[in-house]
């Protein structure tokens, strides 16, 4: 082994040795997503000497990434994440191969890309990608390591672990993909930088154990971390009789982009007028207008121009709190407000308007004037 000195500190660990190092060198893993989870996964797997690492992401580095995606720096803004990451990782470890996939995983490319790897690390930020990874890994008999965050919490689990018989996969937890609008993404809800760092590092740890077959794995258990309480909670997982059989016909019939809206597709047909902040400021000068804030109650700052604050999570039960007049709806980024506008228009029958860019755009405009 040419790089003996590089790995000496892990190789001298009891039970590790040349054998485990050789397994790492021969391993091929794919990291889907090069964001808050993907960066620490890549850094630690490259450091440990995983021989072939595929990295996939279509996005470019932006300023709001840097608080959690600490592989990137200010000079990288605007560049493709995978090419920046590959360049930096080559400096960390020139002895490994990094394959770049500067596009999104989709139904057309997933089978032939994942086929080339032993194990997939899920560092994605949406349900469609997680269900796609799950189903393709089940079809191809590949192990995948799930990781995700939700506000101050994060979790990790090894799915479809081919090293144990009858391993569970993600559809044993949630057989059907959630509706697109049921859950907000990180883009909207905020995330503290260190949390995906912790979860991504846990995923890297599970990957190293899976590759080297050292120790006890997160086999059929979900490990949940709560940042604020600093505590971990473990849940044992078992087969769910309601989980669908994932075969080729199931895969080809499933629409991973669209499945999430099938119960809500009538909402998608409802056109919503978006107004920008300047138009909102004009509306605020008119008497009798009604502005609704749909952010959750813990989201800050509060603003004094709204007439009601009904969080998205309780909107469906709270329609009777709204007046029978046009409603101007605002949220943090202008994503949830579009859905709220569609929902209220359909079920309440009043005209609705969504404020484009949300309070982020509002404060940008107001502070620049």
């Amino acid at each position, binding site marked *: 082994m040419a790089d003996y000195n590089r790995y000496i500190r892990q190789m001298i660990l009891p039970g590790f040795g040349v054998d485990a190092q050789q397994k790492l060198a021969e391993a091929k893993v794919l990291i889907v997503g090069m964001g808050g989870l993907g960066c620490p996964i890549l850094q630690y797997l490259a450091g440990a000497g995983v021989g072939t690492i595929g990295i996939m992401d279509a996005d470019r580095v932006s300023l709001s990434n840097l608080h959690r995606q600490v592989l990137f720096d200010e000079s990288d803004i605007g560049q493709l994440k995978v090419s920046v990451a590959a360049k930096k990782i080559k400096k960390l470890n020139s002895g490994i191969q990094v394959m770049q996939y500067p596009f999104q995983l989709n139904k057309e490319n997933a089978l032939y890309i994942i086929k080339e790897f032993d194990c997939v690390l899920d560092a994605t930020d949406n349900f469609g990608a997680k269900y796609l990874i799950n189903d393709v890994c089940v079809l191809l008999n590949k192990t995948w390591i799930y990781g995700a965050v939700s506000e101050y919490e994060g979790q990790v689990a090894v799915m479809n672990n081919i090293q144990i018989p009858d391993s569970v996969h993600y559809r044993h937890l949630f057989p059907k993909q959630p509706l697109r609008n049921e*859950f907000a993404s990180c883009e909207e809800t905020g995330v503290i930088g260190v949390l995906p760092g912790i979860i991504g590092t846990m995923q890297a740890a599970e990957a190293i154990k899976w590759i080297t077959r050292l120790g006890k794995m997160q086999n059929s258990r979900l490990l949940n971390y709560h940042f604020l309480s600093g505590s971990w909670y473990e849940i044992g997982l078992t087969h769910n009789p309601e989980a669908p059989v994932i075969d080729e016909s199931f895969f080809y019939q499933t629409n991973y982009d669209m499945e999430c809206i099938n119960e809500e597709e009538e909402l998608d047909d409802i056109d919503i007028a978006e107004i920008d902040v300047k138009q909102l400021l004009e509306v605020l000068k008119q008497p009798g207008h009604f502005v609704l804030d749909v952010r959750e109650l813990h989201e800050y700052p509060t603003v004094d121009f709204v007439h009601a604050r009904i969080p998205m999570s309780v909107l469906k039960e709270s329609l009777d709190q709204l007046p029978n007049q046009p409603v101007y709806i605002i949220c943090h980024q202008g994503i949830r407000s579009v859905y709220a506008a569609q929902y209220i228009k359909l079920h309440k029958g009043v005209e609705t308007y969504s404020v484009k860019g949300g309070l982020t755009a509002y404060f940008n405009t107001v502070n620049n004037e």
Partner: protein
Amino acid sequence: MGIKVLFFGSVTDITQVGELSWDYCADTNILMKGLLGRFPALANKKYFLALNQQIIHENCQLKQGDTVAIMPPYSGG
């Protein structure tokens, strides 16, 4: 002792607390009916239940001091 109920992820947006003590009830169906009465918005949420740190897929008998966790899916990265 009753039942300890733990809420995770976006479910806590509805409950506003991560944990509460619930009067003893015989099984998880009765427990969930009570929780839905107190938190109606839970009806629109996807989640699974875990009893004493094991996922459950059907109604389960409860005993004093049991812990039930309500776990929604997470998708952020």
